[in-house]
C-alpha cells in the first residue's frame, strides 16, 4: 500500500515513493551537472587560444565527457524527477511500479558511471556522438545502453502512473497541461531510446569484434534519431517547466488549453523528424528526404514552439492583469518578482531560448543555409542557446522551487540565488553568441588548435576569430561561476539547509494547487504586452533569416 504525506506549502498529497525517487534523481542530476560543467570549462579554456589549457588527448577526452555528462546524464536524470513529479504528485496519484522506478535509478547510475570510467581511461574519446568507424571500448557503449534502458523504465513508470490515475479517477476531465507536456517528453523519449538501442547495440557488438563493420551513413541516420530526439525531450520538458512555473508563481492558467495542447501535439507529430537537419550535408540522402523532414515537418514543430513562446508569457500577463497590474503595456512585467530566481530563471530561459536557440535553429535547419555553419563553432553556439540557457536554466528555476518545497528547507544562500540566473544566463548566453561569432568566421567545432601549430598545412583565421574564442572563454568563466553557485546552493540546501518555517513558506507560494493540477484556460486573450513582445521576436527572426540568405550568396562569388 502506498503511503502519503501532505506537503505543508502546497497541500499536495505526496506519495512517499515518488518523494524519494524525485529527490534521488534530482540530486544525482545536479552532481553530474557539476562533473560535466567542469569538463565544459576545461574545454572552453582550451579553446581560448591564449590559455590553451589541455593537451590534445585530454581535450578530446574532456569534450567527450562534457557532452555525455551534461547533455545526457544531467538532463535525463532531471527529467526522470520531472516525470515522477508531474505524474504522481500533480495527478494526486500513487506512483505506479515503484520497484521498476528504483531499477530506473540504479541502471542509469551504473550506466553513467560505466561510460564515464571508459572515457576517463582515455581509450574512448570518440565524442558523445561516437561516429563509426571511430571505435570506443565496449563498456563505453554498454554504459550508454544501460543508461537508456533505465530511462525507458522511467517512461514505463510514468505511463503506468497515468493509467492508474485515470482508472482511480484521481483527477477530473483531462490531465493538467503540465502533465501533458511531460507526457509529450515521455513519448519522444520512448522513440529516442528505441532508436538508440537499434544503433548502439550493433555498435557494441562491433566494438567487441562480433560484427565486421557498420556503415557510416546508416549509423548517422539512426544515431541522430536518438541524438536529435533526445534534445526534443529536453525542449518538451523545459516547456512543461515553464507552464508549471507560471502556475506556481502566478497561479496562471494557459490562455487556451486547446491551443497549448495542439502545440504539444505538433511536437509529438513532427519534432523528431527534424533529426534530418544533422544530415543536411551528407551525400547519399535525397533532397526530398532532407527537405520533407527538416523544412516541412520542422516548421510545424517550430510553430508549436512559437505558440508556447506566446502563450506562456501570455498566461503570466493575464494572471498579473487579473491581480491589478493593468497599467500600460508592461506593468505586469515590471512588477514581476525579478529577485526571485524561480521567476528570473524562467523569464531568462524563455527569452534566451527563443532568441539564441530558436532563431538560429531554424536558420541552420534550412538545407541551403546549413552549409554556412555546418560543423563550425556556430553549432555549439546554437545548442548552448537551446540546451543550456533554455533547458538547463529552466530546470534550475524549477529546482529553486522544487528543492526547498520537497525537502522543506530554506535555500542555503538566498542572496546568491538572486543573482545566479543572471550570471549563468548572461554568461552562457554570451558564450553562445561568441561561439556563433567564431563559427561565422569559419572556426571549426571539436578542434584542439585552430592555429595548426604542429600541422604541415596551416590555415590562417582572421584575428577576430581568435578574439571570439577568447571572449567565449571569458563568458564561459562567468557562466561557470553562475553554475557553481547553483550547485553550491542546491547541495547546501539539501544537506545543510535550515528547516522551513511553515508560515513564511506559505506566503511565498500562493495557491500552487490551482492552475498546475487542473484543466482550464485563463478565459481571456487580452494580453497586449505579450503580443508586442512577440512582434519584436518575429521581426528579429525574419531579419536574421534573410541576412543569412544574403550571407550565403556571398560565400561563392559567381564572376
Amino acid at each position, binding site marked *: 500500500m502506498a503511503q502519503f504525506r501532505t506537503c505543508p506549502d502546497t497541500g499536495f498529497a505526496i506519495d512517499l515513493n515518488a518523494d524519494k525517487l524525485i529527490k534521488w534523481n534530482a540530486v544525482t542530476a545536479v552532481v553530474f551537472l557539476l562533473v560535466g560543467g567542469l569538463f565544459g570549462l576545461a574545454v572552453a579554456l582550451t579553446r581560448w587560444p591564449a590559455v590553451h589549457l589541455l593537451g590534445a588527448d585530454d581535450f578530446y577526452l574532456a569534450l567527450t565527457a562534457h557532452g555525455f555528462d551534461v547533455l545526457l546524464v544531467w538532463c535525463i536524470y532531471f527529467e526522470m524527477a520531472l516525470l515522477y513529479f508531474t505524474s504522481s504528485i500533480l495527478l494526486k496519484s500513487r506512483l505506479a511500479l515503484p520497484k521498476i522506478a528504483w531499477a530506473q535509478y540504479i541502471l542509469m547510475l551504473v550506466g553513467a558511471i560505466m561510460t564515464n570510467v571508459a572515457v576517463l581511461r582515455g581509450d574512448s574519446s570518440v565524442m558523445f556522438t561516437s561516429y563509426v568507424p571511430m571505435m570506443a571500448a565496449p563498456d563505453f557503449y554498454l554504459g550508454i545502453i544501460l543508461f537508456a534502458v533505465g530511462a525507458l523504465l522511467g517512461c514505463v513508470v510514468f505511463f503506468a502512473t497515468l493509467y492508474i490515475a485515470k482508472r482511480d479517477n484521481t483527477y477530473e476531465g483531462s490531465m493538467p497541461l503540465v502533465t501533458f507536456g511531460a507526457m509529450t517528453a515521455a*513519448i519522444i523519449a*520512448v522513440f529516442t531510446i528505441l532508436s538508440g538501442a537499434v544503433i548502439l547495440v550493433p555498435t557494441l557488438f562491433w566494438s567487441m569484434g562480433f560484427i565486421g563493420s557498420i556503415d557510416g551513413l546508416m549509423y548517422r541516420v539512426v544515431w541522430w534519431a536518438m541524438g536529435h530526439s533526445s534534445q526534443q525531450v529536453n525542449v518538451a520538458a523545459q516547456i512543461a517547466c515553464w507552464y508549471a512555473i507560471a502556475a506556481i508563481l502566478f497561479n496562471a492558467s494557459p490562455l487556451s488549453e486547446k491551443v497549448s495542447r*495542439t502545440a504539444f501535439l505538433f511536437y509529438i507529430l513532427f519534432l523528431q523528424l527534424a533529426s534530418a537537419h544533422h544530415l543536411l550535408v551528407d551525400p547519399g540522402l535525397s533532397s526530398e528526404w532532407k527537405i520533407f523532414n527538416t523544412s516541412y515537418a520542422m516548421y510545424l514543430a517550430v510553430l508549436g514552439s512559437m505558440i508556447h513562446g506566446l502563450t506562456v508569457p501570455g498566461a503570466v500577463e493575464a494572471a498579473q492583469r487579473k491581480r491589478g497590474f493593468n497599467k500600460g503595456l508592461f506593468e505586469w512585467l515590471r512588477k514581476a518578482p525579478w529577485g526571485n530566481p524561480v521567476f528570473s530563471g524562467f523569464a531568462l530561459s524563455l527569452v534566451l531560448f527563443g532568441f539564441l536557440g530558436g532563431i538560429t535553429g531554424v536558420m541552420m535547419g534550412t538545407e541551403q543555409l546549413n552549409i554556412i555553419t555546418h560543423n563550425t563553432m556556430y553549432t555549439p553556439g546554437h545548442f548552448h542557446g537551446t540546451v543550456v540557457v533554455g533547458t538547463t536554466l529552466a530546470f534550475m528555476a524549477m529546482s529553486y522551487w522544487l528543492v526547498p518545497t520537497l525537502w522543506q528547507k530554506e535555500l542555503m544562500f538566498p542572496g546568491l540565488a538572486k543573482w545566479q540566473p543572471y550570471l549563468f544566463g548572461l554568461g552562457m548566453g554570451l558564450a553562445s553568441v561568441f561561439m556563433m561569432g567564431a563559427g561565422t568566421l569559419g572556426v571549426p567545432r571539436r578542434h584542439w588548435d585552430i592555429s595548426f601549430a604542429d600541422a604541415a598545412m596551416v590555415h590562417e583565421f582572421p584575428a577576430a576569430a581568435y578574439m571570439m574564442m577568447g571572449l567565449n572563454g571569458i563568458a564561459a568563466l562567468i557562466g561557470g561561476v553562475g553554475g557553481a553557485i547553483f550547485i553550491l546552493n542546491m547541495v547546501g540546501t539539501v544537506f545543510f539547509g535550515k528547516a522551513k518555517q511553515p508560515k513564511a513558506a506559505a506566503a511565498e507560494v500562493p495557491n500552487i494547487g490551482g492552475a498546475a493540477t487542473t484543466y482550464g*484556460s485563463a478565459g481571456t486573450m487580452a494580453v497586449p504586452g505579450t503580443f508586442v513582445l512577440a512582434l519584436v521576436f518575429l521581426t528579429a527572426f525574419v531579419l536574421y533569416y534573410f541576412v543569412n540568405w544574403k550571407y550565403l550568396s556571398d560565400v561563392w562569388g559567381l564572376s
Partner: protein
Amino acid sequence: MSDHKSTQGEGPVPLMQQLLDSPFLLLIIGVGMPTVIYIIWGIMEIVAIPVAP
C-alpha cells in the same frame, strides 16, 4: 480556470479532445510517425545507393 467544467458534461467529447486524452494512442503515433518518415524512408535511400564496383 473558468472553463474548468466544460471538459465534462453536455454532448459528446470532440474528436480532437479524445485524441489528446489518449496517451497510448499518442504514444503509438509519436513513435510510428518518425519511424516511417525518418528512419525507414532514410534507410531505404541508403540501401538503394549502388555499391562501387
